[in-house]
Each structure stands twice: as structure tokens, then as C-alpha cells.
């Protein structure tokens, strides 16, 4: 018993060490966000931002481009999340509840699509969006993003759908509920963790993506946050990048994701590729 307790303490210490390794770069971003640029260039690292200020943050927030990009990013990301969940849910329902001709080709296609290398596609993507008149259009970008995340989200969701026994629904229908009612009252709540997990995945991808956005969002006022952040890093050929401000900007970009994560955290970890477990 005693040995058991010591090993638990040791394991907890190990967990803290691991936590530290993963949190350190994040801490470093935060730390640097409070420090002036000249301090960041010093050869001796400054571990705690004593004497730091919120100056970097206020400089970033005062930039009207930040709020504009935040707006664009929110529209694109939320559209992607909702669209991905709806489309993926239908897809997951099809492959987990039905056996039909072409089913395995569909599943195979979902896997293979994730293997497409994206670096060579940008000219074609630009041409397509331009001829459809969707350049600089938040919805156009959201369509591209949704297509990029749907194969994986279907994969995530199918296990959850399969995990809800069809008999439950049927029983409810025998009790006089319509198919839709039975679905909404019985199946849907059981799927919630899976939907949350896929939503998080879609959110993260859409929020942080920048290669596709770079190509199809050319106008200054239709930029997403990662593009704005990148512009911030490479602001000028003639003046030095203000790294303190870059880190403050990065922090502000990361905050909505972290808040979103923490809100759905409990549900998510149980939902994360739960699909694969049951699949």
C-alpha cells in the first residue's frame, strides 16, 4: 500500500513535468507579450515579465484591422463548424446505419481525400473561386474549409451514431413518437459528445488555417486572423518586427480557441475519436 502511494506521488510529479513541457511555449508566448521588443532581443532570457506592460496588447487592439479580421474569422469558423457538423452527421448516419452499394467506396474515398497534398492546389483553387465570384467571400472560404474537415468529422461521428442502438428509436416510435421526434429526443442527446468533438476539430482547423485563406482572401478587409497575424510578423522590410506585439497578437488569436476548448472540455475528451473506439 505504501509503495502504491509513493508511486502515485511520483506519477503526479511526472504529470506536472509533462504539463510543464507542453505549457512552456504557451507561457513563453504570454510572457513575451508583456515585454518590450528590446528586452526580447537580449541574450539572457527574461522568465517573468516584471516591469512588463499591456502596451503590446493595446497596440494590437487599437489596430482596426484586428477587429475586422476577428469578424471575418468568426463568420468563416462558425459557418464551417455548423456546416461540417450537419453534413458530417448525415454522412455518418448513412455509413453507420445503412448497408448500401458503394458504401465501402464512399468510406475509402473519405480516407484517401485526407491524403491529398495541398501545396500544389493553390492556383486551381484561386481560379475556381475567381470564376465563381467567390474571392474575398467568407462563405466561399467556409465551403473550402468544410470540405477539408468533413471527411475526418464523418469518421469521428460514425462510431457515435453506431453506438446508439437503433432499437431505442424504434421503441420510442412504438410509444407513439414520430421518427423525427424519436430521433430528436432519444438519439440526438446521446450523440452530443461526438458532435461537440467534431465541432471542436472543425473550429480548430478553420480558425488556424492560413494557406488556403492566403490565396482566396486577397483584399485587405477580408483577411482572417491568421493572415492578419502573418502580416504582422512580416510587417516591413525596412523596420524590425515588433515581436512583443506579435506575441500579444498571437495570444489574442489563441484566446477564443482556449475559451471554446475549456467550455466544451468535459464533453470533448469523452467524445474525441470515441468513434474509433466503437467503430
Amino acid at each position, binding site marked *: 500500500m505504501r509503495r502504491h502511494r509513493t508511486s502515485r506521488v511520483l506519477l503526479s510529479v511526472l504529470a506536472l513535468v509533462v504539463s510543464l513541457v507542453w505549457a512552456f511555449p504557451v507561457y513563453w508566448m504570454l510572457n513575451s507579450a508583456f515585454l518590450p521588443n528590446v528586452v526580447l532581443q537580449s541574450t539572457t532570457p527574461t522568465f517573468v515579465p516584471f516591469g512588463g506592460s499591456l502596451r503590446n496588447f493595446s497596440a494590437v487592439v487599437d489596430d482596426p484591422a484586428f477587429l475586422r479580421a476577428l469578424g471575418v474569422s468568426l463568420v468563416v469558423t462558425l459557418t464551417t463548424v455548423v456546416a461540417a457538423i450537419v453534413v458530417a452527421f448525415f454522412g455518418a448516419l448513412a455509413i453507420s446505419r445503412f448497408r*448500401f452499394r458503394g458504401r465501402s467506396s464512399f468510406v475509402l474515398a473519405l480516407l484517401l481525400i485526407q491524403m491529398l*497534398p495541398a501545396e500544389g492546389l493553390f492556383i486551381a483553387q484561386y481560379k475556381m473561386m475567381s470564376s465563381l465570384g467567390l474571392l474575398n467571400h467568407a462563405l466561399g472560404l467556409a465551403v473550402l474549409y468544410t470540405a477539408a474537415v468533413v471527411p475526418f468529422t464523418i469518421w469521428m461521428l460514425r462510431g457515435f451514431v453506431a453506438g446508439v442502438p437503433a432499437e431505442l428509436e424504434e421503441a420510442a416510435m412504438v410509444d407513439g413518437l414520430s421518427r423525427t421526434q424519436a430521433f430528436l429526443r432519444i438519439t440526438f442527446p446521446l450523440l452530443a459528445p461526438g458532435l461537440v468533438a467534431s465541432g471542436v476539430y472543425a473550429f480548430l482547423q478553420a480558425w488556424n488555417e492560413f494557406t488556403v485563406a492566403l490565396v482566396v482572401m486577397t483584399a485587405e478587409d477580408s483577411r482572417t486572423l491568421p493572415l492578419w497575424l502573418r502580416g504582422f510578423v512580416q510587417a516591413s522590410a525596412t523596420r524590425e518586427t515588433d515581436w512583443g506585439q506579435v506575441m500579444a497578437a498571437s495570444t489574442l488569436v489563441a484566446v477564443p480557441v482556449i475559451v471554446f476548448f475549456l467550455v466544451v472540455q468535459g464533453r470533448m475528451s469523452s467524445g*474525441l475519436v470515441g468513434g474509433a473506439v466503437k467503430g
Partner: protein
Amino acid sequence: MSSRSSRRLPYLLTLPTLVLLLAALGYPVAWQLVTSLRRYGLMQQFGAPAPWVGVDNYVALVTDPSLWTVVVRSVVFCVVTALVSVVVGGLIALLMDAVPRWARLVLQVCLLVAWAMPIVAAMTVWVWLVDWRRGVLNWLLVEVGVESAYGHNWLAQPTSFFVIASAIVVWMSVPFIALSVYAGLTQLSPDVLEAAQLDGAGWFRRLRHIVLPLVAPVISIVLLLQLIWDLRVFTQIKILQDAGSVASETDLLGTYVYRLGTGTGDFGTASAVSVLMLVLTIALSWYYVRSLMAQES
């Protein structure tokens, strides 16, 4: 509910996915295939006719030894990084399972926060941490007495460049893996484990004979995804290359395609490399894909 409509239902349900994928990827992918068979450079991008060259682009590529160097390098990098990520992620998941609630919460929050960090920011910070002159890594090494670390440039040598790159990719991938595997572990029935423990099975035996087989499906899908993602790794390598190193000695497939396409404007060859990359990914993961498909039917 007639039987005919229920036969049509699955097709209706897959329709949104198919339409979406076709709309978003159909044209670009077709363009890439077509372009890989043409001479297509900047001239063509600016309106000159693009002549068909058949498989010339492919022939030029596969007879160029530099491509094979990049392929081998990419495959090694991808396999090593994916395996390390999955092993580390799996161990962290076991750790999460074993520690008290508060420690698990701290660990989960730290992993989530790391996962949420924008990639531009994460890379900037990592480049700072390994900087030869003002990096925390060298500072720390000197503090603990490794004087030769002073001013050591980690990115200059390809070997240490890839160690750093691999470490960064592992750092970025582990949160997803650890949380997924942990989710798998929570689905295990505690009764089975307890019974095994009472039977006197040691930790390692329980892990090997009970835990591993049960979380194997999670691990295999996560490993497959890591292999796919790590073979395509681009942003991390590009940013590290910009910070230092000799580009031609540190190129992986992603940066190689990018350099051919955007850099030299040779979109025909770049498209051919992309197609080859797709074939390579499929070949590399074929075993997995087949076993996954076998479970399907």
C-alpha cells in the same frame, strides 16, 4: 415508410458530402492531374498555351536522384515522428489514467492550451527557444554546465535540424493523440482490470494483454492519421528553414513541392510531385487502409 424510400435514404444522406467534396476539390484535383501532364510554367500561367508533354514531367522527376533523396528523407522523418508521437501520446494517456483527478486536470488543460496555440505563434516561439544566440535551450544547457552549448546552432546541421523539427511536430501532435487514447482508456471496463489485478497480473502484463488490445482501434486510426499528416508536413519545416539551415539538405516533400511551384514557377513538375506524393501516401498506409476497410465489411 416504403422500402423504396428507405433504399434511397442512404444515398440522400451521402449526397451533401459528395456535392461538397466535388465542388471544393473536384476542379483543383482535376486541374492538378491535367497540369502534371503539361509543360506549365509562369509563361503558361500568364496566358501562353500549355503544351501536352505526356508523362515527361514524371519521367524527369523519377530519374532525378534529388527527388529520391527527398522521398527517403520524408518517409524516415514521417515514420519516426509519427511513431514517437503515438508512443509519447499513449504514455501520457496512461499517465492521465493513473494520476489523481487534479493532476489529470492540469495535464489536460496544458495539452489543450498547447493544441490551441496558433501555428505561426507556436513556430515563432520554438524558433526563439532553439535560437543559437538568445535561445532558452542553449541558455539552460550552459547553466547546467554544458559550456559548449554556448552559441551552438541547432539548425545548421541537417541531423540536429530534423531532431528539432521532429520534436516540434511531436509537441504539436501529442495533445490530440493523448486525449484520444485517454478517451479510449476511459471506455475500458474497470471490472476487467480489477479482475486481472486480483489474478496477480503485473502492470506491464495488464497493459500488454488487456489494455493494448482494447485501445488498439484508437491507436491504429491515430497512427494512420499521423502518418498521413507527417508526410505532408510543411509549415513547420518552411519556417525552420527560413530561420536557418541549408534548404536543399533539409527539404521534405512539402517544401520540395512548394519550392518547385511557387518558387521556380514550374507548376507542371510541382503537380507531378503532388500526384507522386499521393501515390506514396497511399502505398505507405495501404496496410492500414486495407485492415480498416476489412473491418468495414
